[in-house]
């Protein structure tokens, strides 16, 4: 029994149906981790990108080095580091938060590049017109550059969202009870791994396909010229 659901191993179908609710609970954790992780990646990536574009060269270079380091380190190493090393320094986070943070941190290195590409693609004339109208740098980003960059960055951001969703099972190694971890636990108790793992293997493509459809729909819905934020 897990989460109050018993397994019925009388037939393959009965077994699959009986463990589906358990996997469903894991699925919610998986989706939550992806959402929180990607939220962190979106915000942190923007922060990296803006700091890298700072006119203070020292700051810009430091950030560039940090982002490069994050990108060049395996996710699993970062995850273990956050989970096992940080508590030694008094920072203890719940497993779920540690996992989401690691995902977000790793992907923020990718999203910062996507932002950079998106901002660079906004024509120079837009910056000049905004400067000539005396907008502050913050206002130029908020009202002119970011809104025009959104439709340009959406396809790449969508790819990373899907890719992150597929990487969430990594969190099972730090005890997060995601779908994969629960499937393993079921296998450990029934000595029958094929069905639970197959189900997990099926649910992922369904999710990523749905996710891709959603992103395409969003791409079509967004005005090509940009999305005025206010």
């Amino acid at each position, binding site marked *: 029994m897990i989460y109050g659901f018993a397994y019925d191993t009388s037939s393959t179908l009965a077994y699959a149906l009986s463990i589906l609710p358990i996997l469903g609970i894991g699925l919610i954790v998986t989706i939550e981790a992806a959402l929180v992780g990607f939220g962190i990646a979106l915000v942190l990536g923007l922060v990296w990108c803006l700091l890298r574009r700072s006119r203070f060269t020292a700051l810009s270079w430091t950030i560039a080095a940090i982002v490069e380091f994050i990108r060049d380190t395996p996710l699993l190493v970062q995850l273990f580091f956050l989970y096992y090393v940080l508590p030694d320094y008094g920072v203890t986070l719940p497993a779920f938060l540690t996992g989401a943070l690691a995902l977000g941190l790793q992907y923020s290195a990718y999203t910062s590049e996507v932002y950079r590409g998106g901002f660079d693609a906004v024509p120079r004339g837009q910056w000049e017109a905004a400067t*000539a*109208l005396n907008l502050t740098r913050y206002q130029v980003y908020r009202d*002119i550059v970011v809104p025009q960059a959104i439709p340009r960055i959406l396809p790449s951001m969508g790819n990373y969202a899907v890719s992150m969703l597929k990487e969430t099972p990594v969190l099972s190694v730090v005890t997060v009870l995601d779908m994969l971890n629960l499937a393993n636990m079921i296998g450990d108790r029934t000595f029958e791994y094929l069905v639970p793992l197959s189900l997990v293997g099926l649910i992922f493509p369904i999710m990523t396909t749905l996710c891709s459809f959603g992103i395409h729909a969003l791409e079509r819905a967004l005005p090509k*010229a940009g999305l005025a934020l206010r």
Partner: protein
Amino acid sequence: MTSPIIRFNNVTKRFGDFVVLDQFDFEVAQGEKVTSIGPSGSGKSTVLRILMTLEPFQEGALTIADISYHQPDGRGRFRASDHHLRQIRTNVGMVFQSFNLFPHMTVLRNVVEAPMAVLGLRRAEAECRAVELLRLVGLSDKKDHYPSQLSGGQQQRVAIARALAMRPRVLLFDEPTSALDPQLVGEVLGVIRGLAQEHDLTMLLVTHEMRFAREVSDRVCFFDKGRIVEQGPPDQIFSTPSQPRTREFLNSVLPG
């Protein structure tokens, strides 16, 4: 005579080894309409871009509306502060060759954006000002359109309204009709001609429309190789230019 609203003092501007402006001296009086003509690469557009603080310069000094502006190289410890640059920009507006309207905003939104964000006008106030300016440029009926739905001439007229909404004392026009189809040039020149009647507005215009320059300017400056070779009232420059280079240039651009 009041002190000039613009004064370049020995300004030198280089792109790498190429000298764009060479110890450049230039003064413009309040309300004066000055047109710059000359071959491309002669530095006439650069003068406007320096005034709009879009380009740094390497030597010399500049005064705009009594605010002095030293920006040797535009970086390091001589860099003008943002605060300082923004003070200068309060007095200056610019109309670009390629319009540079904000494509994700309606015409009305393009015109109210800066008055609301920079001057702190309330929406009602800003829209009131915008509607009036759109009427001035003959585009009241287009206020809810997006730039992509307008012709080039209409876009440039919106850009003029957008610049005027900030009530600049100096308005810069950087080849405002060069990107337009020939049949659309007239409507934009018509709007600029109207503005030239404004007594207090100082206008600096870079253009290849010689007939227009002759008609609206108080003074025409002929640029070559980063210097003003010859300047004076339009009739004098166009009818009796004294410098051979001016004559040569005018012969090459004027028909007949």
